[in-house]
């Protein structure tokens, strides 16, 4: 297998890595790699920070391991190689009445990435996390295949789901698909005028898919205003979606400067009429709103950006409001932010979800934003919440044990699976996750 010397980066483009990358196209090549040169896996690099980076070391690009290798129409269980994009899986099965039960906000995440971060979707409060729908995972550990499931090797299963790739290469997995009526979605959007109303609306929302878009630049009485989006899947076959667009170059620095963002957010808010509206769209539109514009991360210019995402327990919504206040008052223009109520569904020791509210906000990569994010991280810890590894690029190791109380169980399983630390990534090193406390 040839190794390619290359530079690669997380979605936020603020953290980068240089090193050798192999890209197997078939199972036999992957097995050989795992035996001869174990290295962390990378999916589609949709994690924002350094979860999938291994600066100075090697990595294995899984994106060409991208086939559906079995499907049982009786049970809806599909077996896929781990490099399959979740969006492709959704599109090819929805017309036949099946959908992946959990899809993150981008269709470009691979199944391996969805497992390794135990991702959540807009229906987390109903169906839980991705890992809860995984029947079985085939791992490669130093060239040896190991099958793990909630029944078989359950400890290793729980260390693998949300396990940041540290228990071995995920070669393939069986996913329990969910029956669905079709591939269209009825989408209801309504304006929300402020924070308390938002929390109340999220608490009482009954739809399967629910998400809040917050104008993180609105202050004072308007703090927390935004749009509540609720969706239900319906029948109908989508006309093929329009052509994808590209952001061809790094945007100039003013592209996301405060006035531009404020104007954009105000327009986004008013786009929805005061009385709300209901539309029917192909499912890909509401699931993956940004995927239509390839490389939209270039909008943030050369320096890149960060996303901060935390979840705090239900009774900590006031703390979350204070965090939003800090963000709005900071004047660090941040475009749309996402607010969502999470259920308690999680499938791994290191899974992000907890019952509560999750807030995600983007910041251009600037010194002031870095300081603000550190402050937000501490506020999250104080609230008994946690930050999301898939998004993080900046945190230090101190709060991690407290945020992830099952870390010790994970670490024990990981040390057994990869005693020499060959699978460690930049994130794992930065947060000292592989070190015993």
């Amino acid at each position, binding site marked *: 297998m*040839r*190794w*390619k*010397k290359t530079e690669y980066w997380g979605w936020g483009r603020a953290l980068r890595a240089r090193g050798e990358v192999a*890209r197997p*196209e*078939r*199972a*036999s*090549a992957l097995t050989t790699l795992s035996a001869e040169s174990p290295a962390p896996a990378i999916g589609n690099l949709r994690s924002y920070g350094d979860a999938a980076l291994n600066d100075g070391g090697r990595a294995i690009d899984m994106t*060409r391991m991208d*086939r*559906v*290798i*079995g*499907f049982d129409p009786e049970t809806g269980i*599909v077996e896929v*190689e781990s490099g399959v994009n979740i969006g492709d899986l959704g599109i*090819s099965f929805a017309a036949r009445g099946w959908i992946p039960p959990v899809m993150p906000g981008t269709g470009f995440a691979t199944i391996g990435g969805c497992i390794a971060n135990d991702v959540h979707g807009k229906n987390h409060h109903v169906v839980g996390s991705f890992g809860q729908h995984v029947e079985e995972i085939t791992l490669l550990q130093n060239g040896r295949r190991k099958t793990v499931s909630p029944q078989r090797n359950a400890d290793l299963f729980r260390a693998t789901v949300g396990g940041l790739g540290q228990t071995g290469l995920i070669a393939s997995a069986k996913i329990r698909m969910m029956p669905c009526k079709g591939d269209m979605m009825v989408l209801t959007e309504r304006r929300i005028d402020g924070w308390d109303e938002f929390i109340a609306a999220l608490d009482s929302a009954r739809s399967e898919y629910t998400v809040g878009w917050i104008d993180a630049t609105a202050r004072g009485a308007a703090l927390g205003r935004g749009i509540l989006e609720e969706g239900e899947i319906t029948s109908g076959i989508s006309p093929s979606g329009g052509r994808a667009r590209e952001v061809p170059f790094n945007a100039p620095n003013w592209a996301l400067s405060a006035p531009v963002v404020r104007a954009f957010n105000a327009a986004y808010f008013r786009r929805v009429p005061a009385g709300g509206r209901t539309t029917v769209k192909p499912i890909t539109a509401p699931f993956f709103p940004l995927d239509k514009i390839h490389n939209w991360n270039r909008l943030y210019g050369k320096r890149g950006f960060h996303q901060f995402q935390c979840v705090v327990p239900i009774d900590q919504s006031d703390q979350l409001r204070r965090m939003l206040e800090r963000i709005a008052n900071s004047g660090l223009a941040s475009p749309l932010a996402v607010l969502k109520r999470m259920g308690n569904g999680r499938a791994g020791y290191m899974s992000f979800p907890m019952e509560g509210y999750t807030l995600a906000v983007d910041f251009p990569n600037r010194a002031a934003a870095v300081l603000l994010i550190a402050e937000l991280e501490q506020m999250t810890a104080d609230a008994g919440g946690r930050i999301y590894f898939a998004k993080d690029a900046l945190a230090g190791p101190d709060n991690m044990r407290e945020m992830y109380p099952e870390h010790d169980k994970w670490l024990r399983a990981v040390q057994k699976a990869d005693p020499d630390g060959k699978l460690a990534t930049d994130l794992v090193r930065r947060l000292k996750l592989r070190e015993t406390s």
Partner: protein
Amino acid sequence: MSETWIILGATSSMARAFARKLADDGARLVLAGRDMDDMKRTAADCRAKGSPVAEVVRFDARQPETFGAVIRRAEREDGTINAAVFVGSMPDQSAIDADPSLVDGVITDSFAGPARFLQMLAPIMEARGSGTVVGVGSVAGDRGRIGNYVYGAAKAGFHTYLSGLRNRLTRAGGHVVTVKPGFVDTAMTWGLEGMFLVATPEKVADDILKAVAKRKNVIYTPFFWRWIMLIIRSVPEFIFKKLSV
């Protein structure tokens, strides 16, 4: 009506992309190659995408005795039989320079094996009065270069063969598309120095499908390689022999 496609060299990622697009359109597939385990996965994927038939048959360009089974499997399907050839091998020229016996293998994989296979298939296509052959050659076959002239020569031979086959099958309602890719992002080129304007296998597959639908004779993919090669071909030999392009 759905047609049957034989895919030779089905383990190549270009072939994988092509087979999947055919599967989306409901084509029946006979995947042929050496790595059975890998082809079984592609077959499952194609069935999941909509192929009513996607079967794998062992094929080794260096073992002509494997050819018959592939053809017999395709013959079991009614209607039009098409074939797409992705087989080829490109060892480092320096390896060939060190071991001249490697020449035979390159020529067998990229030219002689596929040509012999197509000779066996041609009468069946003629009898059925239809069918398209897609032959994947290479821009490397347009001119011999110091970096890969044995591979280039094999591809040039294949191009010439395809042009003759086109001449023959056209008379019987068939057609032949010669495909000359530039650099494509596959296992063959991953990590090689000096790659530029690299196309995805999906792009190449799209171009091939369009060429098949429009009954094109010779395509370059991506298209701009036609112009690049026009320039390269027009450099006089007395200059070209001193270049290392």
